[in-house]
């Protein structure tokens, strides 16, 4: 149990390049914090600085209020799950998990080690694999062994370095659920690095978005999504990502390449000092096929005609693509943004989310409706979000914090109830054990196993 505090952390390499530049983050005890950003943003470096594998150039790192900058990794009492798992190939699963305990010489008796290892392996459904070598395990099982090695020790915090990026999509979803529930149940401070925003949004109590070694915004996933501070965060969070459309202010309307949009009241108040051309940030779900909009809602938005180049029907939803002529004054800025987001260039297209039953098809010109109340307006030069409501954002993060506390409380109660249930002789995990044995046959089979079944293993 620990709080981790980073104060103005800087990592400069020998060539003077600051991989991590003046980052200050407070991680509360029991909090699940995500570090997210495109590749090369310094998120992994920051994690390695916390665990002690990278030296800190300047700034202070405090664990439970104690400065630990100069301490060796082994003296920081943190445990870490590596991207490639870093299992010891010459040791069995049992010995892999027992490794940290055996290193703490004299601290644990042989019986204690055995008890702790079996506890961890039961939590992670590794019981029948204890004697096997890592080489004979599937990807998901290896991942669990790495987790086991981390939880077997009473570490102050868990650090994860993109732990799921080597798994296939199905298994990734499954392990994500397991990690989330494990963390909730153990209530242990966690720091998790990822470039996958689904992981960031679903796992994190708070998410820190990094760009080129600098902290852009740290907030609850909901605040990041609804009240991003700048173009970068807005573009990074959300899939499909936010549409950025250049707009000229003309009295009460925005003139955009896809049509005129009425400026809502909320936006107009904040437009003081805005440049002549701004960027509108419109999420796909702000749009809808005009035929599917309720009378009550229709008044809050603008309806305009657009020609669709193509549509994608995904079963539960549908995306439509609209191309437009890009305004040259913002092209440069948008391409720069695209590069920051690991893409080549920003295509001059708008992705709109349509009702799954909408009959709009590629090549057709149709009426679409935009909920203009939810639009964001960005200053294209500074990237700043002009319409951000800091108070509303803070409120969202506060709410998320409250929810987290009650969730941990509930998880503990449920866990307590389950422990007593298990003592009464009921075996609840037979189903998952079977699934796992099937998974042992091969990575592929594990991938096709029922995803919902996996999450039950730690519930």
């Amino acid at each position, binding site marked *: 149990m620990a709080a981790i505090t980073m104060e103005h952390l800087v990592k400069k390499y020998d060539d003077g390049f600051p991989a991590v530049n003046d980052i200050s983050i407070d991680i509360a005890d029991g909090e699940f914090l995500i570090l997210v950003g495109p590749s090369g943003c310094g998120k992994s470096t920051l994690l390695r600085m916390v*665990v*002690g*594998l990278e030296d800190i150039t300047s700034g202070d790192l405090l664990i439970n209020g104690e400065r630990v900058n100069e301490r*060796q*990794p*082994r003296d920081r009492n*943190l*445990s*870490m799950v*590596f*991207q*490639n*798992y*870093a*299992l*010891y*190939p*010459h040791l069995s699963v049992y010995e892999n998990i027992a*490794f*940290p305990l055996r*290193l*703490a010489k004299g601290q644990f008796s042989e019986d204690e080690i055995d008890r702790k290892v079996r506890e961890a392996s039961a939590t992670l459904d590794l019981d029948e694999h204890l004697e096997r*070598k*890592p*080489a*004979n*395990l599937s*990807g998901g099982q*290896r991942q669990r062994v790495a987790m086991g*090695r981390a939880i077997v*020790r009473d570490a102050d915090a868990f650090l994860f370095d993109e732990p799921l990026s*080597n798994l296939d999509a199905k298994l990734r979803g499954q392990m994500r659920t397991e990690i989330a529930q494990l963390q909730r149940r153990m209530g242990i401070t966690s720091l998790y690095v990822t470039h996958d925003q689904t992981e960031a949004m679903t796992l994190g109590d708070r998410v820190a978005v990094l760009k080129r070694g600098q902290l852009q915004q740290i907030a609850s996933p909901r605040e990041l999504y609804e009240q991003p501070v700048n173009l970068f965060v807005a573009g990074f969070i959300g899939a499909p990502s936010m549409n950025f459309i250049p707009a000229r202010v003309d009295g009460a309307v925005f003139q955009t390449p896809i049509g005129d949009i009425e400026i809502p009241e909320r936006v107009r108040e904040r437009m003081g000092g805005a440049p002549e051309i701004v960027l509108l940030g419109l999420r796909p779900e702000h749009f809808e096929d005009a035929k599917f909009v309720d009378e009550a809602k229709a008044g809050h938005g603008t309806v305009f005609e657009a020609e669709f180049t193509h549509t994608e029907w995904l079963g539960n939803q549908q995306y439509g693509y609209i191309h437009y002529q890009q305004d040259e004054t913002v092209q440069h800025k948008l391409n720069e943004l695209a590069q920051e987001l690991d893409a080549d260039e920003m295509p001059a297209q708008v992705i709109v989310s349509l009702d799954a039953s909408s009959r709009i098809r590629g090549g057709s010109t149709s009426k679409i409706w935009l909920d203009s109340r939810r639009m964001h307006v960005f200053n294209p030069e500074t990237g700043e979000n002009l319409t951000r409501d800091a108070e509303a954002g803070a409120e969202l993060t506060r709410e998320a914090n409250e929810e987290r506390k009650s969730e941990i409380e509930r998880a503990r109660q449920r866990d307590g109830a389950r422990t007593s249930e298990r003592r009464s002789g009921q075996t609840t995990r037979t189903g998952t054990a079977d699934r796992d044995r099937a998974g042992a046959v091969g*990575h592929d089979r594990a991938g096709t196993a029922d995803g919902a079944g996996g999450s039950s293993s730690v519930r």
Partner: protein
Amino acid sequence: MLSTKQKIGWTVVSVLVLVYALFPVLSILMTSFKSPADLNAGTFLPSKFVTENYEQIFVGDAKELFLPALRNSIGISLIATFIAVVLATLCAYAIARLDFPGKKLVLTTALMVSMFPVISIVTPLFNLWRQVGLYDTWLGLIIPYLSLTLPISIWTLAAFFQQIPWDLERAAQVDGATTWQAFRKVIVPLTLPGVFTTAIIAFFIAWNDFVYGIGLTSTSAARPVPAALAFFTGASQFEDPAGAISAAAIIVTIPVVLLVLAFQRQIVSGLTQGAVKG
């Protein structure tokens, strides 16, 4: 998969290479069983299999020459191998893991030393050794053997260390290990196959050396087998010692074959498989 045609092709090539490599060995083996009178008969097989030559080198006249030489060869080669492997392990670990000035220099020096012609050093070394009292001693051979075995050991081991994922060490450190513990408990077990391979190569180099062996020794105090073979004589001045030499040559081949057979399993590659994503 190989097609049938390719398989046949490979088999033919393998057989050719094997015959080319093993025919002389077989010829020596046959010669070692010939009686002195049989030596010049010009036949491949002995007319009668006799163990006279083996008796000669183990219990007969050549005993005084061969047995001490065998002891010297085994002792000197093992010691030289052991020292080379220990030093090379530490050196290669540093080269693979640390960034220090002069790293390139160490590697190029090692390469240059191993390329230097042995024959050009042996005469100056002969003079030097006589003056410092290392001439005709075990140590006097171990030192030059290290110059042969160390470079190749460093190169093979450095390549081996570089294959081991660095994250394993980091993981061990986070798990609570000191640098030394991480090295001993994680890195060393993983490098054992590489160390064995290196040790065998180093042993062969020391075992097979002739130039230093004949140039830096004068008595059976330190003379290794390859040099001793040159001093074999027949039962009389007019007798060809080829039979005894062949027998001795067969005997010294045996440890080499045994070593390879014994450590074959250790040289299995792919021990690191499963450490990281698969």
